[in-house]
């Protein structure tokens, strides 16, 4: 399939918002996580979490226009605005622009808020606004409305594989000429219920994430959004997306041993243990999840890191936590390409290959 050129990158996460903030975090090292506050079993509690602040959205859209837009969709809208701004495309017609958004969890705060309103006041008094924002494609609707995108719009949810799956669709849209540009993005948010579940299942995260301690739980939950403006022009300061694929292990040795890989290893052993089966000895690896935490579409932020690396001609300093396992080596950009890899707990994997443009 024809590669897609990355013309703009928009990111928001615990590191801040915009490529400059991400770049600075990668250069200086990750900030410590914040605290997610929630109520559990009748008492207040909190836990470490990488939280994102969408307040800078006010720079692009007025408060009045976003008063019905929830946190989840604000993260998406901010990421989308930043990607368009980065590409110099905040103005101009958008009838040739498609929109594809990936999310693993959807709008969890609003979904549970809606359920709470039903429990508290009965279904006749459930909030219609909360309901309309609770559906997975609400973010795409808000982005399309606010940015006046009139091309095709799609939301893809395939949990940890959402990013690779959605990106494969974006490449197909460009290849078949359905649109000339695609605004591709991914977003997930944290909420008190997810925090409670994480605490129940995994205990309190102590941080920091140790991406390459593949069999030890070190995950710290996170949230954020990453958007890319893609076209078929064939040239880009950020590089090209050459392919996005999904597969299932066992396929040991399927990925080339001399490649460079950014792993979305985020401290979940049930997922991370599969990287050992997917990547051969000698593979060049890096991971940047300590900058933004663990969430289903975190691979999109890996993708943004890869784009910045191709722009700058080098990968940011790696975060190893401990010695690299399996004879893996620190990744480099010597071959002018890097592949973002994610594995889920069932042995499925998603790969996205980027090359210099």
């Amino acid at each position, binding site marked *: 399939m024809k590669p897609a050129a990355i013309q703009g990158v928009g990111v928001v996460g615990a590191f801040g918002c915009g490529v400059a903030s991400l770049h600075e975090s990668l250069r200086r090292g990750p900030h410590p996580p914040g605290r997610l506050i929630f109520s559990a079993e009748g008492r207040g509690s909190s836990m470490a979490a990488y939280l994102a602040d969408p307040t800078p959205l006010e720079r692009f859209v*007025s*408060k*009045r226009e976003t*008063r*019905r837009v929830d946190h989840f969709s604000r993260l998406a809208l901010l990421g989308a605005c930043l990607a368009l701004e980065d590409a110099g495309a905040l103005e101009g017609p958008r009838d040739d622009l498609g929109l594809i958004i990936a999310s693993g969890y959807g709008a969890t705060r609003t979904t549970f808020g809606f359920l709470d309103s039903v429990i508290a*006041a009965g279904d*006749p*008094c*459930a*909030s*219609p*606004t909360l309901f*309309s924002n609770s559906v997975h494609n609400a973010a795409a609707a808000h982005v399309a409305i606010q940015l006046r995108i009139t091309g095709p719009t799609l939301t893809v949810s395939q949990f940890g594989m959402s990013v690779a799956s959605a990106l494969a669709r974006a490449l197909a849209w460009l290849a078949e000429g359905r649109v000339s540009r695609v605004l591709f993005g991914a977003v997930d948010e944290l909420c008190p219920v997810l925090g409670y579940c994480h605490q129940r299942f995994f205990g309190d995260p102590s941080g920091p994430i140790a991406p390459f301690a593949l069999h030890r739980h070190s995950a710290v939950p996170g949230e954020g959004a990453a958007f890319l403006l893609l076209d078929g022009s064939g040239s880009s300061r950020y590089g090209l997306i050459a392919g996005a694929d999904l597969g299932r292990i066992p396929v040991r040795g399927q990925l080339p041993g001399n490649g460079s890989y950014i792993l979305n290893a985020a401290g979940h052993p049930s997922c991370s243990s599969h990287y050992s089966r997917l990547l051969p000895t000698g593979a060049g690896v890096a991971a940047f999840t300590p900058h933004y935490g663990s969430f289903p579409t975190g691979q999109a932020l890996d993708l943004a890191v890869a784009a910045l690396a191709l722009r700058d001609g080098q990968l940011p300093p790696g975060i190893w936590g401990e010695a690299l396992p399996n004879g893996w080596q620190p990744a480099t950009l010597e071959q002018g390409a890097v592949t973002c890899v994610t594995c889920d707990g069932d042995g499925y994997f998603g790969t996205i290959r980027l090359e210099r443009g």
Partner: protein
Amino acid sequence: MSIKEKLKKILVEELNLEDMTPEEIVDDAPLFGDGLGLDSLDAVELVVLVQKHFGVEIKDMDEGRPALQSVNSLAAFIEAKSAT
């Protein structure tokens, strides 16, 4: 707190009118269009909020249209319904 004061608080907090305070809402200002700038989605939310906070049901458009003109008209509607 009077019905009008409670209504204004609900309008600002539940409809997320972050750019104004309850005190800034004029009693007889139109809720929709050039007044507060609410729209049809707000009308649906407002019907639910009135039932939730006052226990008063706005059953149809015939009741809703005159009641949802302003804070004054909505407060009068709630008072009348609460008295029956």
